[in-house]
């Protein structure tokens, strides 16, 4: 994957868990550097879609997929895809902050160390720049040796983003990244996502429609494993094309 934020092209993607269809014939395109929000009711397939993009879905039992997903020119569903390289390029942030039981510094240095970086000077500079990108540096610069657990929930979530950024990914997957956070921390994460836009391709699952409206360029609405509609966010939230999208956005969805 080159240094530009990668484009995403999905063609006829279907995913099954055993007999259960999680995604059915999904096709979409996303320009690199944009923020894509995935919305839809629980069980609609949006989280499965997210987990296909770093092949985390492979960990599920009896999973089978068809179709093609091309991320930055690489066909990531090919059997010989280097999953370690893919997951380095495609970082992920989960709903619950998942800080490791280490210090702030060691959390962020974890990935680079796994990659074999030993120079303490290099590690310090990676930790600092990652924490700065994650808008956390000013709050933790004097506390790098403290346990990550001493940070607030919102700070821990930004720490997780810093940790993901430390291995220099090109894509960030965010699975309801602010669902467990208070409004102020949510605002900080949203501003952070906006600041990463352009340099990274960001794909966000959210149940907060206003959040999708605030920070995404493109929104995709899923329902029962189908991609119902994908459109520029400002069009989707003011005048969606599909009646089903309209019903979902106006709360009349059955």
């Amino acid at each position, binding site marked *: 994957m080159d240094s530009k934020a990668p484009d995403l092209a999905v063609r006829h993607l279907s995913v099954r868990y055993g007999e259960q269809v999680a995604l059915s014939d999904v096709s979409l395109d996303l320009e690199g550097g944009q923020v894509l929000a995935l919305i839809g009711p629980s069980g609609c397939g949006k989280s499965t879609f997210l987990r296909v993009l770093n092949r985390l879905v492979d960990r599920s039992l009896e999973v089978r997929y068809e179709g093609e997903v091309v991320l930055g020119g690489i066909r990531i569903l090919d059997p010989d895809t280097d999953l370690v390289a893919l997951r380095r390029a495609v970082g992920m942030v989960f709903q619950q902050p998942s800080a490791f039981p280490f210090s702030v510094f060691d959390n962020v240095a974890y990935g680079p160390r796994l990659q074999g970086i030993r120079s303490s000077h290099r590690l310090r500079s990676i930790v600092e720049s990652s924490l700065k990108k994650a808008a956390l540096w000013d709050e933790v610069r004097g506390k790098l040796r403290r346990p990550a657990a001493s940070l607030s929930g919102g700070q821990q979530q930004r720490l997780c983003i810093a940790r993901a950024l430390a291995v220099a990914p090109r894509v960030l997957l965010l699975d309801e990244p602010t669902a467990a956070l208070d409004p102020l921390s949510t605002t900080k994460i949203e501003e952070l996502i906006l600041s990463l836009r352009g340099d990274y391709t960001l794909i966000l699952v959210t149940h907060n*429609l206003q959040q999708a409206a605030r920070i995404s360029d493109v929104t995709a609405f899923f329902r029962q494993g189908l991609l119902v509609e994908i459109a520029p966010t400002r069009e989707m939230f*003011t*005048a969606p094309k599909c009646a089903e999208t309209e019903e979902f956005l106006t709360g009349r969805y059955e």
Partner: protein
Amino acid sequence: MLRQSFRSELDQLDQELIRMGALVEEQIRRAVRSLTGRDVVLAEQVVLDDDRVDAMEMDIERRCLTLLALQQPLAGDLRIVSTILKIITDLERMADHAVDIAKVTLRLREELFVKPLIDIPEMARLSSSMVRLALNAYIHRSLDEALTMIRLDDDVDHLYARIFDDLQNLMRERPETVLQATHLLFVANYIERVADHATNLGEWVIYMVTGERKDLND
């Protein structure tokens, strides 16, 4: 449950909007009737009742802003609330023109009209009926009704052009009528503006129904 209270608030807003529209329509009709009948008392009433229109506008506006803040409507719901907000602004401006016309009645109270007013009442009848048709189109969420209403603006424009020519000729032939004719020219212009605002209402209904903004005032 939330959505249910949102729907019922929207229904109530629709009722308020119809009441405001009916009052504005009535204000325009009464203003022109005060002029043709040289009814100073009626004209003063029109001026006074403008406060009622303003109060209704502020009340509906406040309720729309509360809905936006508390319910954060999206898609079609968002278009409905923004359409109401735009409609009340146009209605309030129409009501201001009714006041303008009533004030002409008060200014011309001592003047005898040189000829009976025919085209001006006709123009006012058309324009005020556009207001009602526009609100019907809003209530019925009807693109067709909005487009049909907007077409009436052409008839209003024709009448306006004719009144303009007639009054110009009158002023040329009988210079002593200049004061009166100038005021009547203003009245015709106010009524023409009412029809333009009604056209705006139609455009907002079209936006609400289709999601597309069109400029049909020309």
